[in-house]
């Protein structure tokens, strides 16, 4: 198994952000993670990448126990992620952003791969521009993906990388993602709101609501599940 979560629970004080979530991904799997706002999707990402420590539960990555592993070690083990709000490294150029990721996650600066990633993500022309100030939103999102790719991951976790883009941009980006996946043979774990996007990208979907896993299966199956529909309408009403 690439990623194996067993009963992961994250509690903040009395609030259960993620409750007893169990699922697994094989290498190369593409899995959608959906659910209304506040369902605990990003918290689950944080638990896998190490930013929060689960209160209970087991997490294994390629057979290795994740729970005690520090954040940077998880990146080195092959877990890459993006942030919902892009976090370009200030004072650094786009290329330097990728260099940092490459150097610290893999132990050396793989310039060829960096050039390739920049090319794939269509950031080549901005490679030496300041990352914080000179990128459009799409480019910032692309840079998020680029940083994660530069760490040479086996699992790439994408947190709403398509949100906020207009339709054409979304199409193009989805195409890019498919290309990336093919090129590097990655597993993808994707948080996304847009059902159409998810349906096109992910053969399998996991649904969270109030921190709990309420459905799992193919998009067609899941989005017709009455509980999922209820959670979405309920979620929107709130």
């Amino acid at each position, binding site marked *: 198994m690439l990623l194996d979560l067993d009963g992961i629970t994250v509690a903040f004080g009395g609030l259960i952000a993620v409750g007893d979530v169990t699922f697994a991904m094989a290498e190369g799997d593409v899995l959608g993670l959906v659910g209304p706002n506040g369902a605990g999707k990003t918290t689950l990402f944080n638990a896998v990448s190490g930013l929060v420590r689960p209160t209970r539960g087991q997490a294994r990555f390629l057979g290795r126990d994740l729970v005690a592993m520090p954040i*940077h*070690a998880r*990146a080195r083990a092959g877990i*890459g992620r993006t942030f919902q709000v892009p976090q370009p*490294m200030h004072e650094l150029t786009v290329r330097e952003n990728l260099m*940092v990721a490459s150097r610290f996650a893999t132990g050396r*600066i793989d310039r060829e791969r960096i050039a390739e990633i920049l090319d794939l993500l269509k950031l080549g022309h901005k490679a030496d521009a300041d990352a914080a100030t000179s990128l459009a939103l799409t480019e910032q999102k692309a840079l998020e993906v680029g940083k994660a790719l*530069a*760490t040479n991951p086996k699992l790439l976790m994408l947190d709403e990388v398509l949100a906020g883009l207009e339709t054409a941009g979304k199409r193009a980006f989805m195409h890019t993602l498919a290309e990336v996946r093919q090129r590097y043979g990655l597993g993808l774990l994707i948080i996304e709101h847009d059902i159409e996007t998810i349906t096109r990208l992910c053969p399998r979907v996991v649904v969270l609501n109030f921190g709990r896993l309420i459905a799992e299966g193919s998009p067609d199956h899941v989005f017709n599940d009455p509980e999922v529909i209820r959670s979405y309408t309920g979620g929107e009403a709130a």
Partner: protein
Amino acid sequence: MNNSVKIAVFLALSYVAVPLALGSNTYVIGLIVAALTIAGIAVAWALLGNLGGMVSFGHAAFFGVGAYVSALLTLRGGWPVFPAMLMAGVGAAIASVATMPALRLRGPYFALAILAYAEIFRILATELKPVTGGAAGLLSIPRLPNVLGLDFGSKLGGYFVILTIVVAAMAAYHLIRRSAYGLALKAMHDSEDATRVVGVNSIVLKAWMLMVSAFITGMVGAFNAHYINFLEPDYAFAGQWTMLAIVSAIFGGYRTVSGPLAGALVVYLVDQLAFKPILPQGHQIVLGVLLGAMILFNPGGMMSMLTAKFLRKEASHAA
């Protein structure tokens, strides 16, 4: 002017022109040596502040430890002075390991935790009488030696030694800043989490910066011990060392490599030559004003201000 020309001019000025012009005036050289001593701490402080993102209020801790290590190695261990000074840097770096639990603390807490360490080291130096001589301190610490006919124990010799330490510290600052480590450290300023998830072990990097900074500060402390030939706890761990270094680094601009040096020279020499005669008592009030004014009105410091002006001028020439 490109950078290598600038560096060559700076080296020529500091290693040749200054000694030739002022070498005979031991008073002025003495003032410059004192300013360079501050500059050394200021560079180390700025390296930690800029690269590590940590403000320290206790660099006197590392200064004092370095001074004591070198003084004791030469006085009691019979070590030659220069190797002892290197060991002083190592000793200060080891002392910084004791302060590393503080790395987990946020900005202001870290700053003041280091201050507590400085205070603890001072009291330990006072209480460990058999080793440190206690409050009475150490007198007649060996002076800097004669090597190959060059008398480093003279005023001018001392100038070359401290200048070399400061230049080496600036070079280290520059090289680290340019390296991948420097990039990662810079990246950590804005989002430590985003940097960590790409594989950067932020605590280890910060710990390294603390050790480098402590090493430099310890060397400077050791230099001062052999230059003044005297040590006591209150002097070795005096808050003044931290205070003057902070004022210099902030005034000169601690995000630039040259800022702390320029700041120390300007702050110390102006203080000594201009303000001290006017306000014999309490002239340090001016340092407080400089520090406050810089933080409020030009947080980038003097060097960034000058560079900005220079660039603007060049731009207007071009236009």
